[in-house]
């Protein structure tokens, strides 16, 4: 150490993030606590612990960005294009500028707009109504251009061009083996096409930002899943040093992937605020939230698969068009690429550009769409082969990724999910012959498989302090988007330090706290919790260094549990945790130790299997989900209560996607028709089925020091697909297009009658 500084260890970890492999290069600690043994009795981790911040929520004290009321605050509104494709010939802001009560206007100086809702200009005024009035006074002269909003039209050769290079992006092929050989080996070859709709995130709290300047520094309360990400992007956009930008997000009313990046309205709020020299609040209306704040892309997916008589899958060919709007349509193929043993596979996916707002990641992007096609196809294949659908899945089970050709999974409890799920739903009760039930109301049972990443990764930084009164303060720039991040952080710290969660103060959702990544890809829990445990263990050591001399013992021999520090082989020799803290002479103990990298040589994935029981009225076409069993393996669950809640939520959203939700576009005007909570159908209490979560008791042996993976997205992935398969089992007719609305059920039944 003659140089006076040390070079820390940095490791690059490869991570499966929302279906794509990304690399995180991060500084990692020299030492991490040993993984908690699977059989160790824990007091707080893995229990049903109520959210530590729930009192703020149930009393209305929780402040969301939506609730920020600042003295002198102005209300910002954005003028959006009413046309799906147009040149802007002229724009006159003068009347708006002069309107009483208007304090700032911005012209974004656009020459061209490509979707209804694209931002053109903005105003800030003393109240929302005045701002609306001012928007109406902005005069824009448009030159309307040809447009296309629906994907099935956009892929036709003579469709209006959204992008100069055409409407279909070059396919991104993924290939292994040789599909021609694979199909030759097959006894049965089947090809089917499936369609999914555009789904809108529609979170409870709309997108929005409140911006306030203090000299050259700006503070933004933002509805975001990426507190630090927004700080960095906004600083770049405003050409400010990062230290001049602060993003606050203590509470956020749902995001589901739609709030991951920096939004245009956030930049506008900051700019308006600077001009007006007053705080500016821009919250989107529900209408704006619906038609121009992102969505899950629609897809047209074709699956061709071959199998031997015994069910061995020999080849998959997959082709998909994904409606990206003016952005990318993403990728759906990972479930098909990964889940089942299959040596020969070819995937070709293209984004299709349309004159609609850009798609954004939405809870398990791609996997939701891809699981519908894959799992419907597996059931169709099973029927053709005369094999039970569950048996077909077990026949092609693999313990390595890439269809059995890749890396071994660190842990995989999918077989357990199949076994326990089938048992619970009563798989044997399903119709042997689909649609065989008597009478007009038919019941059916179906299932589907889930795979997802969610390994978490290194890079989370934190500030972990133990004060002299025994209270812990944790500052970390992660965020709680409704999944319960506050609580699991407190649980892990409390467990490691042997104290009560009440003594852990968790401060997150602020870019003034140390860096942590965005909340996407089910990454938050497994990134942050192991880091918290490393820091807590470090603090524990520091406290033992104080407690050791007090007990006349070597600190190495100490342990802590239930508020007491004791000698490991002589429990009667002890000092209370709080008492030991009084002897902290430097005011506090502090650390920023964090988690290590993920080990190399494994694939890290979570697994699940959903089983649905449905009732279909063949006279009205109405579908009711009766029961839904949701089995999940995601390593160690930190909080059973919030884990169950995630599983419920994923299932209800799956029901919604299977039966109700779709963004409907008017092809004449290019506008969304159902941009409100009435016409865009979201399930209510009356639609919620009985949901029975099964949390597989497992601990990942190598992934991280808690043996945990993420659960945010997984319950969303197979829910709708299981329901669709159950609907087939009930009525004996395939409906290959979501949502499965009553009209589609009746039309399909009618077609079979005629056929």
């Amino acid at each position, binding site marked *: 150490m003659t140089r006076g500084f040390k070079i820390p260890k940095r490791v690059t970890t490869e991570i499966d993030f929302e279906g794509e492999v990304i690399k995180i290069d991060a500084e990692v600690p020299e030492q991490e606590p040993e993984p908690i043994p699977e059989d160790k009795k824990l007091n707080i981790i893995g229990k049903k612990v109520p959210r530590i911040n729930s009192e703020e929520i149930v009393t*209305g004290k929780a402040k969301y960005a939506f609730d920020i009321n600042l003295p002198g605050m102005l209300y910002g509104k954005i003028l959006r294009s009413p046309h799906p494709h147009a040149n802007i010939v002229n724009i006159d802001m003068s009347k708006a500028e002069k309107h009483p009560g208007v304090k700032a206007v911005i012209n974004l100086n656009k020459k061209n707009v490509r979707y209804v809702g694209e931002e053109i200009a903005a105003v800030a005024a003393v109240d929302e109504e005045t701002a609306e009035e001012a928007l109406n006074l902005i005069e824009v002269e448009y030159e309307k251009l040809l447009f296309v909003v629906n994907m099935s039209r956009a892929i036709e050769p003579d469709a209006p061009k959204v992008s100069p290079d055409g409407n279909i992006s070059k396919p991104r092929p993924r290939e292994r083996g040789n599909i021609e050989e694979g199909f030759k080996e097959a006894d049965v070859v089947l090809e089917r096409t499936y369609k999914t709709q555009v789904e809108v995130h529609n979170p409870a709290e709309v997108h929005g930002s409140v911006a306030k300047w203090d000299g050259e520094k700006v503070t933004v309360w933002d509805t975001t899943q990426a507190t630090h990400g927004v700080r960095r992007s906004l600083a770049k956009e405003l050409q400010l040093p990062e230290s001049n930008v602060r993003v606050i997000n203590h509470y956020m009313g749902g995001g589901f992937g739609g709030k991951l990046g920096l939004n245009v309205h956030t930049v506008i709020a900051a700019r308006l605020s600077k001009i007006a020299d007053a705080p500016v609040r821009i919250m989107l209306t529900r209408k704006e939230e619906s038609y121009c704040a992102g969505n899950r892309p629609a897809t047209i997916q074709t699956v061709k698969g071959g199998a031997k008589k015994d069910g061995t899958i020999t080849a998959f060919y997959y082709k998909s068009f994904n409606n990206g709007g003016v952005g990318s349509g993403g990728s759906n193929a990972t479930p098909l690429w990964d889940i089942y043993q299959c040596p020969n596979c070819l995937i070709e996916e293209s984004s299709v550009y349309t004159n609609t707002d850009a798609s954004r990641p939405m809870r398990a992007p791609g996997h939701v769409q891809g699981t519908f096609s894959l799992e419907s196809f597996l059931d169709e294949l099973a029927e053709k082969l005369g094999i039970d659908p569950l048996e077909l899945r077990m026949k092609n089970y693999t313990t390595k990724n890439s269809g059995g050709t890749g890396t071994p999974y660190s842990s995989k409890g999918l077989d357990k999910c199949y076994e326990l799920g089938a048992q619970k739903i009563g798989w044997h009760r399903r119709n042997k012959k689909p649609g065989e039930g008597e009478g007009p109301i038919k019941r059916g049972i179906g299932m589907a498989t889930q795979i997802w990443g969610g390994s978490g990764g290194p890079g989370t930084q934190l500030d972990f302090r133990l004060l002299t009164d025994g209270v812990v303060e944790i500052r970390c720039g992660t965020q709680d988007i409704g999944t319960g991040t506050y609580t699991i952080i407190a649980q892990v710290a409390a467990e490691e330090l042997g104290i009560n969660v009440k003594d852990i103060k968790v401060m997150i959702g602020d870019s003034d706290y140390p860096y942590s990544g965005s909340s996407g890809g089910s990454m938050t829990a497994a990134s942050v919790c192991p880091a918290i445990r490393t820091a807590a263990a470090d603090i524990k050591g520091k406290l033992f260094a104080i407690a050791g001399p007090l007990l006349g013992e070597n600190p190495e021999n100490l342990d802590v549990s239930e508020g007491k520090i004791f000698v490991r082989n002589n429990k009667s020799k002890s000092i209370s945790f709080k008492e030991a803290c009084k002897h902290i002479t430097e005011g506090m103990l502090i650390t920023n130790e964090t988690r290590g990298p993920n080990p190399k040589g494994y694939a890290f994935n979570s697994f699940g299997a959903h089983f649905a029981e449905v009732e279909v009225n063949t006279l009205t076409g109405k579908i009711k989900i009766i029961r839904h069993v949701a089995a999940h393996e995601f390593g160690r669950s930190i909080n059973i209560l919030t884990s169950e809640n995630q599983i419920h939520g994923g299932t209800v959203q799956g029901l919604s996607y299977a039966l109700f939700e779709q963004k409907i576009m008017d092809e004449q005007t290019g506008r969304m028709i159902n941009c409100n909570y009435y016409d865009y159908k979201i399930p209510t209490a009356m639609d919620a089925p009985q949901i029975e979560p099964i949390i597989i008791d497992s601990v990942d042996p190598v992934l991280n020091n808690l043996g945990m993976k993420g659960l945010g997205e997984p319950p969303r992935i197979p829910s709708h697909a299981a329901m669709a398969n159950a609907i087939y089992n009930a009525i004996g007719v395939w409906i290959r297009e979501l949502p499965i609305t009553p009209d589609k059920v009746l039309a399909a039944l009618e077609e079979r009658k005629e056929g």
Partner: protein
Amino acid sequence: MPEKIEKKDAQKHQLSRRNFLKGVGSGAVTVAVIPSSIAAIKAKETISFQETGVEKGVVNLIVNGRTYNVEVEAREILADTLRKRLNLTGTKIMCSQGACGACTVLVNGIPIYSCMTLTMDVNNSEITTIEGLAPDGKLHPVQEAFIEKDGMQCGFCTPGQIMSAVALLKNNPNPTLDEVKLGMSGNICRCGAYLKIFESVLAAAEKGRR
């Protein structure tokens, strides 16, 4: 001739609105903290106009046991009065059209959508918001149950859910699961936490029985 009758009703309504505006004072801004027993303050015979030409008047609201005389616009919805003028931001707005229930508050004990209610229409009413359920910091049994059973995810719709649950249990202290579903069907939870919400309402009913 139902059409004519409807028109008449509409006229009556407008008239009463105008009378209301005449009947209340101007210029007063959020004078708060008068014990509800003292109740309404006498109104002045004036109508005020903003620079933008919007009619304004003062209403008397008894919110969570406190009396407020608040100057509001004729077009103002109760949710905005609560959130913007009284800074009671626990009441949320999600849909702005009476489709989701996030803005549910109790007016004279009855649950209403405050985004669909003009403030002037609830003049002299007693209003309970989420902030009023736990006076002196002691949580309402419904609030306790929502904490224990995790009847929330992102928490944004939760105040509305709780207000609906309070009203439901007041009318029916021993609801069945189906009655809970029906009673809570006016409140959307986009996260889909319905099952935990049902558990919470049933647990609150159980607390009520103890």
